């Protein structure tokens, strides 16, 4: 049976690529067309809800296998995020990239990437999944090096990582096919539990590592910060917001779709420690180490991209917690993370649009000039830090609660350490950009145009509304859990069922608003206040004016630098250098077989023929 919206969505994204090639030089037309196509895709996506469970088989045959797509609840959840965030990115870019150089191919690659992601998410067999996964990583690569120049080298680094991860995935898929004789998800899932233990372990390890690279899990994260931060800021938000999370999609599919978490517990290594627990430990390290690295960044975008890695750790902790609450928390965190990180990066982009810099040591005091961007960043960081009443808190609460219930105190404390580190670095972010002294060179700047404010307002609403009413999203997640045969999360419209835990966001928010009102009354009880110039300020009797920089933002956490500086060993960067020089050396040796001497080549051919003829029998 043909599910029309799926076919149309895939068709539309291909059409978008084609249209953008036709309109290569006509930037304004490109913008309008891209906006309309993405809007149509979001509209189609909303219709998908009725078609969950249906399968579409395309008349395209690859390696004797027809490409097939299906709409699972998980696919619906992810496509909803993909299409909505792409539309917001396009709306934001309409204004922010207008008239900029190197943007002719911007929408083209955006469509290619979206096509890849939609395909991966809809795919119903492993071959389709893998082909579109490849397409998606190429889309990522092209988006990364959009600004040209300096962004090319980190993008190349990504390609090395992505190709290695694809090789691992390919090997895993080949092994699965060799055992089950099928690519179809349904058949693979049915045959998976009967695999020999060693082979299953190998497949799971290969694919986990492959997906871990894409989701930037701890020791394999080094490609991310530089490459995301060096492209356009609107793309940084798009890439961090959704692209990185495709790795998590893969992990969910692998763990729940194929392995099943009861099976995952089977790989006992020592005592109670099993594979699931080991992945969780890497998840915990993914939270702590990148979060504390973010603390010492001097560039707003790089700081946020480091958090992008760290937040992935929460999702992994949640998904691998084997607890209905925790799994729901992990899946919910993907959505929450997407909303607030995009909000944060849009706000940073708004600042960058006016000031031309995202260097945290050069900004300050912009709250007086860009209040909307400030509010956007404020909502975003409250979400990112996981403080009520924003949505980041709800999913993090699920994860903490699940880890405590399952009795993993040290995983739970690493999640909390991550939150504390996040609070520190996001305060540095908002302080150095918006608070403190306004620099004289930014005295004249204005708020960004309406089209750039619109996505910020929408996301602010989303971050707040899903925080107070997590129910609608949780209902989708409960469906995902049921579709994988897991226990669904016991949710209510405003929190969790009292039997499973104590959380009611509506009550918390109401009491908070009541407290604010009371505090406001206390504030009004005092006499009037007046707003004064930033130069009327305590400086121990010194007269301040524009010529005196009276601001504290460089090396914001000096105490922590004393503590952490001895620990900064850059192990991963040095490993990368070692590996690349090893590859270079090996390549240098391999190169020497091409001596340029005809006799040597003739000898090679002879040797090859001899070897082949020896094994000819086995080969045939």
């Amino acid at each position, binding site marked *: 049976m043909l599910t029309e919206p799926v076919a149309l969505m895939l068709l539309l994204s291909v059409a978008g690529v084609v249209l953008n090639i036709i309109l290569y030089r006509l930037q304004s037309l490109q913008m309008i067309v891209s906006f309309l196509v993405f809007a149509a895709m979001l509209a189609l996506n909303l219709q998908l809800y009725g078609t969950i469970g249906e399968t579409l088989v395309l008349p395209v045959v690859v390696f004797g296998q027809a490409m097939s797509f299906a709409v699972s609840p998980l696919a619906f959840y992810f496509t909803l995020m993909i299409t909505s965030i792409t539309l917001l990115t396009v709306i934001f870019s309409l204004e922010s990239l207008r008239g900029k150089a190197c943007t002719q191919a911007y929408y083209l690659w955006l469509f290619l990437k979206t096509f890849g992601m939609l395909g991966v998410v809809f795919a119903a067999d492993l071959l389709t999944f893998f082909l579109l996964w490849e397409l998606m990583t190429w889309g990522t690569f092209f988006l990364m090096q959009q600004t040209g120049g300096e962004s090319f080298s980190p993008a190349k680094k990504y390609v090395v990582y992505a190709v290695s991860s694809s090789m691992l995935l390919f090997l895993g898929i080949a092994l699965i096919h060799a055992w089950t004789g099928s690519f179809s998800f349904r058949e693979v899932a049915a045959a998976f539990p009967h695999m020999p233990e060693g082979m299953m372990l190998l497949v799971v390890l290969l694919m986990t590592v492959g997906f871990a690279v894409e989701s930037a899990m701890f020791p394999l994260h080094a490609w991310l910060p530089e490459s995301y931060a060096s492209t356009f800021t609107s793309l940084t938000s798009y890439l961090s917001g959704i692209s990185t999370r495709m790795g998590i999609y893969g992990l969910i599919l692998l763990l729940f779709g194929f392995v099943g978490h009861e099976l995952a517990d089977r790989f006992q290594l020592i005592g109670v420690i099993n594979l699931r627990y080991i992945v969780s430990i890497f998840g915990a390290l993914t939270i702590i180490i990148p979060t504390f690295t973010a603390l010492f960044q001097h560039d707003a975008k790089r700081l946020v991209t480091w958090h992008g890695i760290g937040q992935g750790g929460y999702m992994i902790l949640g998904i691998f917690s084997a607890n209905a609450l925790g799994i729901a928390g992990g899946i919910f965190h993907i959505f929450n993370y997407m909303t607030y990180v995009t909000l944060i990066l849009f706000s940073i982009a708004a600042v960058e649009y006016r000031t031309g810099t995202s260097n945290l040591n050069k900004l300050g005091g912009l709250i007086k000039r860009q209040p909307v961007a400030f509010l956007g960043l404020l909502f975003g960081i409250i979400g990112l830090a996981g*403080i009520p009443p924003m949505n980041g808190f709800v999913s993090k609460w699920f994860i903490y609660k699940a880890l405590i219930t399952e009795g993993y105190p040290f995983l739970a404390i690493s999640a909390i350490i991550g939150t504390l580190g996040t609070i520190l670095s996001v305060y540095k972010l908002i*302080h150095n950009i918006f608070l403190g002294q306004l620099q004289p060179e930014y005295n004249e700047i204005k708020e960004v145009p309406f089209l750039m404010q619109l996505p910020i307002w929408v996301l602010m609403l989303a971050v707040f509304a899903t925080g107070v009413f997590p129910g609608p999203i949780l209902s989708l997640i409960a469906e995902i859990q049921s579709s994988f045969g897991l226990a669904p999360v016991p949710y209510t419209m405003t929190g969790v069922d009292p039997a499973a835990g104590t959380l009611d966001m509506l009550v918390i928010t109401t009491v*908070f608003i009541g407290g604010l009102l009371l505090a406001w009354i206390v504030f009004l009880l005092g006499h009037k206040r*007046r707003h004064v110039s930033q130069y009327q300020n305590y400086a121990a009797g010194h007269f301040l004016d524009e010529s005196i920089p009276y601001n504290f933002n460089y090396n914001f956490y000096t105490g922590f630098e004393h503590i952490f500086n001895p620990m900064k060993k850059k192990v991963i960067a040095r490993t990368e250098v070692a590996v690349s020089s090893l590859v270079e050396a090996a390549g240098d040796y391999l190169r020497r077989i091409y001596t340029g001497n005809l006799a040597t080549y003739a000898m090679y051919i002879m040797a090859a023929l001899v070897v082949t003829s020896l094994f000819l029998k086995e080969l045939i």
Partner: protein
Amino acid sequence: MSTVLWIIFYPIIAFAIGVILLGYGRKFNARVQRRYGPPIQQVFYDILKLMSKRTNISHGWMHDTALVMLLGGTLLTLYFIPVPGFDFFSGYGDFLVVMYILLIPSLGMALGVGETANPNGSIGISRALQMLAGYDIPFALTFIGMAILAGTTNFSEIIALQQAEGIFGWGLMTNPFLGVAALIALHGMMGEKPFEVMVAPHEIATGPMTEMGGKYLGMMMIQHALNVVIELTIYINLFLGGAANWASYLVKLFVLMTLILSVNALFGRFRVDDAVRFMWKVPLVLAVIGVLIIIL
């Protein structure tokens, strides 16, 4: 009906207790220094004076909002911590919620102080946040340990479990490692010496309070009074078996406060990195030992 009365009057009661605790602290300090000291209601006079200042200055709307957020967030926290006779809201948010709504006031203050555009304030906030990471990690770990021990994260259930077994059921007795670790972390949380790095009047001109005057400082003092009650009550609820009635609650509050004031009176001030190192060495190691005892 009684719930409504509690909701209306509880902030006032908590404020009165907080003011008296702070006044008691100043008197205690004075007596340690062989002074006569101010009257015990001195903090109330201070707050009244600050609120009735004729002129007030502000550096912008976030500076105003910050004070509202500071006090509003504190009131929110206050309601979610059960005290004898009033635990209406603890069924809607557990300790994990309290731990994170405790951060709303800090965030509010941090934002407001940031807008005052005074580097002393920013340095104070930077130190306060570093201290937060210092004391909150051991404190959170002690809580996780208690939650695993009790099998719940709900305050009133933890209190009921402790009270069921009398004084030997108290968290401090069942797991003294966690109790002591949390006590040291609480000391840092209350910002008393030697962890008073955030205010440090002699180095950074009272840090966050530098540009606060009049009603702004008054609201910060009101919040401080409430915060003292909140922090002590959290410790009492987790490790001193909560309180069955108001008499024992007040006794526990004053005993705990005296303990903290005695340490406060004896010490100078740590540097911020030394304070954090201390927090990550002594209480954190104690908490890890306590948790290992529980799970093994």
